[in-house]
């Protein structure tokens, strides 16, 4: 772990700029009908990129120990488990009733 890694102001400003541009583009993209679920996917993809920029650079994870990576990963991995496992019920509920039930 090297938390004392000092990042230059220029670099911070670049990340900051990127975040602002992404914010505007996500707001803009929302007005275009991309059809289907694509709007949501694009919006969440942009949000994920923004979150990664903040985590990696503002939060210095890019320069941190493996242990930090593990806990950052664990948090997000676990939320994925929560989401997928729980969604299996409502998603398969219809599936069971319509596909097998007939």
């Amino acid at each position, binding site marked *: 772990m090297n938390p004392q890694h000092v990042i230059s102001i220029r670099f911070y400003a670049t990340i900051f700029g990127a975040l602002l541009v992404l914010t505007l583009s996500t707001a803009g993209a929302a007005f275009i009908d991309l059809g289907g679920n694509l709007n949501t996917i694009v919006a969440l993809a942009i949000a994920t990129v923004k979150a990664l920029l903040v985590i990696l650079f503002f939060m210095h994870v890019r320069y941190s120990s493996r242990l930090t990576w593990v806990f950052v990963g664990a948090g997000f991995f676990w939320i994925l488990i929560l989401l997928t496992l729980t969604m299996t019920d409502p998603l398969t509920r219809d599936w*069971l*009733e*319509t596909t*097998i*039930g*007939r």
Partner: protein
Amino acid sequence: MSTLGFPLFPEQASTMAPRVDQLYYFLFGVSVFFATLILILIVTFAVKYRRRSDDERPRPISGNLGLEILWTLVPLSLTLVMFVWGARLYFITFYPPSDALEINVVAKQWMWKAQHAEGRAEIDELHIPTGRPVKLIMTSQDVIHDFFVPAFRVKNDVLPGRYTTLWFEATKPGAYRLFCSQYCGTQHSGMIGYIIALEPAEFQAWLSGGATAVSMATAGENLFQKLGCVSCHAPNDTGRGPSLVGLLGKAVRLQSGASVIADEDYIRESILNPQAKIVAGYQPIMPTFKGLISEDGIMQIIAYLKSLKREEGAQVKK
């Protein structure tokens, strides 16, 4: 009944009961085997290797890979057997035979209301014929309840805002206890009753007995007229709403492009929350009937719509 003066096993009174009991005996056997094995090992070791002097320094044994694999794989394969067996049984309990006799059940704090298609309704009692599969279509008016008949080994949650089903086939006549097994408030333990299984002939006699009951489909038809449904949902597709003839079980294309199977839940939702799923080609103009129709009423309308299906939609009376 056992010789102890109290029962150890519940009565077997449905086609499901022996099947569940078979699996239960299997699990029981496995459990007894392993519990005895552990008990014997512990007692043997405890006696044989009891400390005889305080100076004993037994040689360390750090483990044995073969044993570890053995006692990982044996339980694993046994549990897989249990899983597959249990899952197969579950599928049987989950999917009612298509020729089942349908009875509607509405649960509310703290009573069971059942209504037969022919019109007879009963409270905290349910008359059924033996030797014929019976399918219950259940919903709750308030909290979550659970319909449980131990002698039949069946049980299912009864949820508000949704239909759940339960099916069984009674094998011998008699009165069997019905419990609510999902805690539902103060009088939860009073929400009990009896399932009365009758020989088919007796059941028919019972059905036609009682006061001059109107069949559910007829009651539903009356409601259909009274609430003005008929003014939009004409039998031919000429109304402002889609025709409902032969609707149940059919796939419906929605405005959103998706398509759904028009089951009981769909009908119920369309009555209470009409804007949720708009049929392709129609305007979202239907008002909600929330507060204007009871759960029983919805079930009657569904029964009516089902009757339309059976009669090939010939006769929607004006």
